[in-house]
């Protein structure tokens, strides 16, 4: 009978999350479709040219496979081709890499872990360090610590490939503190041994540092801004008025200020991954970024497409995780307001 509002939207938080999921699924479908359409619609017919170049260099079976994948010389309607393409994707069939002569899915599954390990760890580490620094510099705004701001701004603007190259030049080539390039000592072979793992860690240090260094400043500056904004909220002043310790007041502010950073996480993951793909090129590190550049150089279209799909899906998955994290952190997304 008596009720506070005529139309209660009880669980709109979950609805929001489901909407995000729907958007990501739609994006995944769009990516797949773009992947299907691009080679077929581009001016100059790049696939026809590729097949021309490949004649005699690879087996006729492979040429047939490529033709099938890109719909060359088949008198099938676009629609039939599209259905065929989707069916193959659902079975995990991404075609065959021209340069490596093995299924794209195999190539990717052997290389993806290097990328996920390096970029994933780099992203998490830089997010946490950058956010913590942002909290600190936001809290101490107006003090001498402010001098880091212009420096961070500059660091943020340094292109990643330049930063990586300079790091190699200084710390690997000149000071010899770190190995030059690669993912592990080339004299070792991959196995589950302590020497091998230690070597992987050792070789990962500089690439990891470069990723952290290049994305740190962005998180830091963003978090500092949010911290400054949040500190002018009444509830932070309230925390002071309640006689809480400085640490506790800072925690009140930081916990709220981090929310926009988390909300931005989804937006930034794409940028971060894009930038970090270069790490493999510069450090000659295995992984999909390296594969991607090589695939472009070799006009290995099946591999190129497979990588693109893989990266996109990974980013979409990460985006969804970030959205879910936000949902967990902010109670306001979970329950409707009473007004």
């Amino acid at each position: 009978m008596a009720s506070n509002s005529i139309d209660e939207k009880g669980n709109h938080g979950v609805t929001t999350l489901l909407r995000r999921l729907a958007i990501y699924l739609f994006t995944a479908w769009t990516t797949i479709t773009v992947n299907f359409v691009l080679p077929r619609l581009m001016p100059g017919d790049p696939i026809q040219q590729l097949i021309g170049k490949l004649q005699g260099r690879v087996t006729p079976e492979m040429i047939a496979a490529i033709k099938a994948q890109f719909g060359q010389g088949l008198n099938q309607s676009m629609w039939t081709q599209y259905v065929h393409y989707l069916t193959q994707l659902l079975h995990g069939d991404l075609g065959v890499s021209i340069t490596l002569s093995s299924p794209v899915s195999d190539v990717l599954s052997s290389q993806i872990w290097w990328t996920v390990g390096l970029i994933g760890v780099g992203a998490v580490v830089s997010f946490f360090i950058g956010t913590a620094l942002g909290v600190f510099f936001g809290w101490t705004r107006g003090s001498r610590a402010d001098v880091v701001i212009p420096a961070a701004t500059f660091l943020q603007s340094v292109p990643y490939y330049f930063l990586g190259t300079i790091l190699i030049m200084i710390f690997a080539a000149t000071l010899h503190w770190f190995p030059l390039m690669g993912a592990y000592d080339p004299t070792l072979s991959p196995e589950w041994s302590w020497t091998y793992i230690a070597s992987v860690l050792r070789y990962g240090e500089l690439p990891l540092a470069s990723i952290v260094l290049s994305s740190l400043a962005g998180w830091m500056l963003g978090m500092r801004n949010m911290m400054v904004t949040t500190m002018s909220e009444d509830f932070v002043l309230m925390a002071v008025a309640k006689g809480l310790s400085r640490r506790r007041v800072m925690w009140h502010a930081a916990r709220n200020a981090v929310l926009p950073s988390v909300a931005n996480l989804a937006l930034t993951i794409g940028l971060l991954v894009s930038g970090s793909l270069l790490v493999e090129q510069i450090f000659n590190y295995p992984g999909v970024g390296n594969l991607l550049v090589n695939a472009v150089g070799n006009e290995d279209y099946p591999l190129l497409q497979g990588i693109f799909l893989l990266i996109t899906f990974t980013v979409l998955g990460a985006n969804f995780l970030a959205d879910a994290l936000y949902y967990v952190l902010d109670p306001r997304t979970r329950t409707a307001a009473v007004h």
Partner: protein
Amino acid sequence: MSLTDANLVLHVSNFSVDYGYADEAIRAVTDVSFSLGRSRVLGVAGESGSGKSTLVYGLTRLLRAPGVITAGDVRLRLSGAREGEIIDLLAATEDDLRAIRWSEISIVMQSALNALNPLHKIGKEFDEVLRVHDGRLSKSQRRQRAEELLALVGLQPDRLQRYPHELSGGQRQRVMIALALALRPQLVIMDEPTTALDVVTQREIVSELHELRERLGFALIFITHDLSLLVELADEIMVMYAGRIVERAPALDLYRAPRHPYTLGLMESFPPLSGERVAMTGIPGSPPNLKTPPAGCPFHPRCAYAHDRCRNEMPPLNDIEDGGRSVACWLHDPASPVEVPVSLSRRGDTTPGGVK
């Protein structure tokens, strides 16, 4: 200059606050003095920009940058374990202040929605202040205390499980009041706590406040722009204009017999709910811009009784009559060339409702 009378909780003298520094500074509060007795209610009335909020945030050292306290002396008599001790709030260290905050002085801000941490359940707000200031309480004791406090303001204990955005405006403000009383402070400051609420809710909260104060005996500084509300609630009222106290008097005296033209104007700005309908004028003009305050009395450009002296000289806040009244107006100076109008010279014991 100090807190000699044991019945006084707070003594403020010659308190001034600036906003900004050097060339950009403006004077937000000028030369405010008053004292507050135990369990007394002091009302501060004034419009936006009159400095009423700046005054209390300044006193408690909570004023944000670029606010700077430029003069004055603020003393607080402590209670409880430190009974009898007197602390100089302007000389206090951060640790000193932290120790007395909330346990001796608590504050209720205008918007409870903004003042409550949006990520904390209501229960956590109570738990936090109780834990920080009294480490001896167990978790269940703190919870029990929180439930008692909610009951005090007429809220169900299940509200402790709610987030601020899940409560209505009135409920949130009740939570704030309960929170402010959590440590039994002897001084509570309320900055327009009911302005954002409907009149009916305001009435409920103000009535509750009355009962609570009678029961718990805390002193209260209550800020509002609604003079009628203050007359009901306060023992004594200070009217502020352009950063200064222009009139100070016991509440009923102020209401029945205002002495400052601005106080009179404010009263005549609220149409009455009964009696004949007559045309009223309010106060002509608008409140002064503090960046370019007028010379002399800041109210003179809007004052019907202004004379030369008002345009050039700032009137001091002088005691008049007996009964602890004071007013800052040249009109009440013996040398005033303008005769004090009847509306500003009425006796304080005239029947209520005389101001129409």
